[in-house]
């Protein structure tokens, strides 16, 4: 049985057309991939710009809840930075944890409260320590200060300083959950 030439031509056109169509679809898919990658790159650059913008801002909220040990290290860092003897540090104690009202952004925030004591501090050391603490721990606020004279007079006067601090942290982060469970 022989086929008519016109049928052969139609079949040939169909086969070749199908091949071209398949290839065109592959090209379209590649174009879509380029568009997707370009969009992702633009999005990434915007994300990085946002990160750089935020990194220049003052930290007001802690990323996670800080255990007492961590807070103690922060105090020691501030003492070292203020050139105050670490032996002044008497310790940190947790004062509790408060739930904060929703700020309307569906992020659960809590406030952690703590107290720290420094002994035998001069007035100058108190000033230097507070400046160092404030500079390094922008999310921590000094809610209360209790400075009591212990010994000496004049520039040699020594004081015991107790500072109550608080910081807001994001309760939903995995870090804080892990710590809460520990």
């Amino acid at each position, binding site marked *: 049985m022989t086929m008519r*030439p016109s049928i052969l031509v139609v079949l040939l056109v169909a086969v070749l057309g199908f091949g071209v169509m398949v290839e065109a679809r*592959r090209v379209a898919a590649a*174009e879509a991939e380029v568009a997707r990658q370009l969009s*992702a790159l633009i999005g990434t650059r915007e*994300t990085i710009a946002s990160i750089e913008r*935020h990194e220049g801002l003052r930290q*007001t909220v802690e990323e996670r809840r800080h255990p007492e040990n961590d807070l103690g290290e922060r105090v020691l860092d501030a003492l070292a930075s203020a050139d105050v003897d670490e032996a002044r540090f008497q310790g940190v104690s947790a004062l509790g944890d408060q739930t904060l009202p929703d700020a309307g952004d569906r992020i659960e925030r809590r406030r952690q409260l703590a107290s720290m004591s420094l002994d035998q501090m001069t007035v100058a050391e108190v000033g230097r320590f*507070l400046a160092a603490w404030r500079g390094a721990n922008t999310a921590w606020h000094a809610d209360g200060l209790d*400075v009591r004279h212990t010994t000496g007079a004049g520039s040699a006067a020594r004081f015991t300083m107790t500072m109550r601090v608080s910081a807001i942290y994001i309760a939903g982060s995995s870090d804080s959950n892990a710590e809460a469970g520990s």
Partner: protein
Amino acid sequence: MSGARMDLRWPADRFYWAVLDTSRLPATTGARRTAQLGYLFESVLPGVPIEAVHAVYERLPGDRVLACGLPVETVAAINGTTMTLAPEALPDFIEAPVSAERLNLLSGAYAPAGVRRARRVTLVLAALSLVVVSALVVTGLERRRAALLEHAAALEAGRREVILEVTGGSSTAATAQLALQLEGRRRLLERTRTIPGGASASIGAGDSQRGDADHALERLIAAWPTSATVRCRSIEIDESTISVVVLLNAMADEEVVRDALAETPGWTLTQPTVERRGAEIIATLRLERAVEENAP
């Protein structure tokens, strides 16, 4: 005959002729149409089966078709060098706006070998051209696709490099994973850094006085009297009050202390109390946070 090309023109009376009424034929085309016209033509042939006649047909106005035929053996006997075979003119009894030249009997199966060969060559060349053009198109598309994929890969590599610069993450991690880390970093920063008017700034609204005890102490010490001998016993600072207990050398120093601490910015001094305990003169001063005029 004309020139090298053999074109036969025979008298009309050597052909079978008919004008066929096709108004009742179903609308078909191609070989089926030719077969239907053949059966119509056969009905007017003088005892000759249509299989023994090679006919050509020419459409006429008004559902009519002009049929012109020759016995098959006559057509088959035509010399192979003859290109066309047509009547010299239409017979007198047929009035149709058709040129006799168009009724070429050397057609279809009886087309000259040269014509059939030329048609085959044309068809093969057309098919080859189609294949070549298609191959060129596919090759071009494939090259474009390869270039696009290369571009996409370069974009992804660039994105990955940018992310790694920021995150310092593992270079073996997938780009999507790195992007997720980056997004996580951005979200965390958005939640923990102050943006004027943003959500973080609104946290703690209502307790704006909270957390500046260190500033209060700073202001108090800046206002501390230097002209009198004052020994500090204690300073207590909370959100709304500062309590100061000092030892004085003389009752008159109380006024100096009071005047000095009254200058503490942002705080208002209330009536101090002074008491003598043995040899010590103890003054207790209380400052309250001043109400801001533009406070809500």
